[in-house]
């Protein structure tokens, strides 16, 4: 990008008189710096200031995180006299950060389930693969059941691991995964319902969306965990995690519905008319013509909602579930490891960042691909 700017800026800086040379792609480093970093006194001052700030901050951070840090040992004594980060803390607690209180001898089940998902979903990311929609829907229908059997057990000789033991990054991914996988379909239905010509459907959808959107997620989670049992007959007790999952799924669906509606609104009337004139019924018109275009337009908004949802999973701490952040915080209160809050939080932040950044990059890739050659 910078090179392009150097070229496009050039004609405005008083060299119009010279006959126009064909634009060259390659620009010398020195010329690039002059055109971009030192092209005015103010920019020169800002450049120097920024360089000084970077010099003052980056090396100390690297020293702390890497060069002066230690990974050695398995107790806090290993970190005595170390001026950098004590990653020993993270190393010792790593299993718990990943799996919560899931029994260590059963953790392979979780790993296996995620490997299974990665293998099954891999063709979706291959450009030439022709059955993406079929495979995607297949995964959406089959995988949750498979994953539940693996995670929860109780079938095929797998011992039961009850949900209060689930935790760490594993729990974060379960909640975010369920939220993401359910919010898009439900959100699409809500968005279509909100634009429906049937008043009852429309009012129900508007009511649901506006109610959920106007309430903080914490309230929804509290309602799900504290209030809901009060209304259920005594003896009926359904799982706390399940209640949180339903709360998160409904919450994110309401947001998703509005994102999708934004996409639906920019599809021109002519697209609907052309589809109708060809004899497509409502379902086919939506599934084949309108939604594929609308969803592509709102990819940034969809991914934005996914990322928000992923980070909102940390709020389940409030109802006593230990996601990645929750389990790190719990570990920080361990008397044997007091004083390593920074390491814990940096690790948790890094964990979230990897996933959110991954989603963001993938969305950019999708956008680039869909924008090539299409007429909008």
């Amino acid at each position, binding site marked *: 990008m910078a090179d392009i700017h150097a070229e496009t800026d050039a004609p405005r800086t008083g060299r119009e008189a010279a006959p126009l040379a064909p634009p060259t792609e390659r620009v010398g480093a020195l010329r690039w710096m002059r055109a971009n970093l030192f092209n005015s006194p103010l920019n020169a001052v800002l450049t120097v200031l920024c360089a000084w700030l970077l010099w003052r901050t980056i090396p100390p951070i690297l020293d702390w995180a890497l060069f002066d840090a230690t990974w050695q040992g398995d107790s806090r004594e290993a970190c005595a006299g170390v001026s950098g980060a004590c990653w020993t803390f993270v190393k010792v607690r790593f299993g718990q950060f990943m799996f919560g209180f899931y029994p260590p001898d059963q953790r392979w089940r979780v790993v296996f389930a995620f490997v299974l998902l990665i293998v099954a979903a891999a063709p979706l990311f291959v450009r030439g693969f022709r059955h993406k929609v079929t495979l995607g829907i297949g995964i959406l229908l089959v995988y949750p059941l498979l994953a539940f059997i693996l995670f929860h057990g109780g079938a095929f000789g797998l011992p039961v691991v009850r949900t209060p033991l689930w935790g760490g990054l594993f729990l974060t991914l379960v909640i975010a995964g369920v939220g993401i996988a359910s919010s898009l379909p439900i959100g699409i239905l809500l968005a279509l319902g909100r634009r429906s010509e049937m008043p009852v459907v429309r009012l129900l959808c508007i009511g649901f969306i506006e109610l959920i959107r106007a309430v903080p997620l914490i309230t929804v989670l509290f309602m799900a965990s504290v209030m809901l049992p009060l209304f259920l007959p005594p003896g009926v007790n359904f799982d706390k995690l399940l209640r949180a999952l339903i709360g998160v799924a409904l919450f994110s669906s309401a947001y998703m519905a509005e994102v999708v509606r934004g996409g639906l609104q920019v599809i*021109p009337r*002519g*697209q609907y*008319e*052309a*589809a*109708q*004139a*060809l*004899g*497509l*019924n409502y379902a*086919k018109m939506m599934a*084949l*013509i309108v939604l*594929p*275009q609308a969803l*592509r337009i709102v990819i940034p908004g969809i991914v934005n909602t996914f990322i928000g949802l992923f980070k909102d999973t940390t709020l389940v701490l409030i109802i006593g579930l230990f996601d990645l952040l929750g389990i790190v915080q719990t570990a920080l209160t361990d008397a044997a490891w007091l004083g390593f809050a920074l390491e814990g939080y940096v690790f948790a932040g890094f964990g979230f960042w990897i996933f959110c950044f991954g989603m963001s990059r993938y969305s950019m890739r999708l956008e680039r691909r*869909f924008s090539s*050659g*299409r*007429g*909008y």
Partner: protein
Amino acid sequence: MSDRDSNDAPIIILRGVHKWFGQFHVLRDLNLDVWKGQKVVVCGPSGSGKSTMIRCINRLEEHQRGHIVVDGIELTGDVRNVDAIRREVGMVFQQFNLFPHLTVLENLILAPTWVRKVPKDEAVATAMELLERVGIPEQAQKYPGQLSGGQQQRVAIARALCMRPVIMLFDEPTSALDPEMIKEVLDVMTELAQQGMTMIVVTHEMGFAKSVADLMVFMDQGEIVEQSPPSEFFVNPRSERTKLFLSQILRH
């Protein structure tokens, strides 16, 4: 359909058709018979209800009073009738309305495979044959956004023909085109007319109308003011409004 021979009843019948947009009376008492194989050109000043009339024929718009019968099926609120008619009636729009997320070929085979349930190979073969007919088989794998306006409109015609319609409606098919592209679209339409397709064309292209039309329909303020064969229509128009319109449109 069975008790009626298509040769002794018009394929499209409009009887006393009225339509309102809110308080605005857009169509007033339209009566029109179109016979199989007939080419009807509809003209008139903008806002006269031409587009609305042909959009009523495949129920993109609903009429509120009167009867519209297409190929023996009366257009009512019954969804099955509407679906049946839309399968038989192809439509070409002013703005092409191609599906931008699909390639040209995918645009063409979508309705045959999903609505008519034609096997994919067969649909592709038909589509390529039609692209050949409109003169752009080499564009099959491109996206609509990569084509010129004239090419897009020819694809749109081919897309409508893929459904093997018995009637084709054209809603100002050349109004959104640059002048140099109008001819290529009109040529395709002329060829289609020569092959005996029943056509209703809303257009201001009077050259096309003179050479192709069997029946000229002039509309103004929601009414059919005059309908007559082109020989009579252009030479000896009966109403003052038609004369005025023709003098305006044929001046240059």
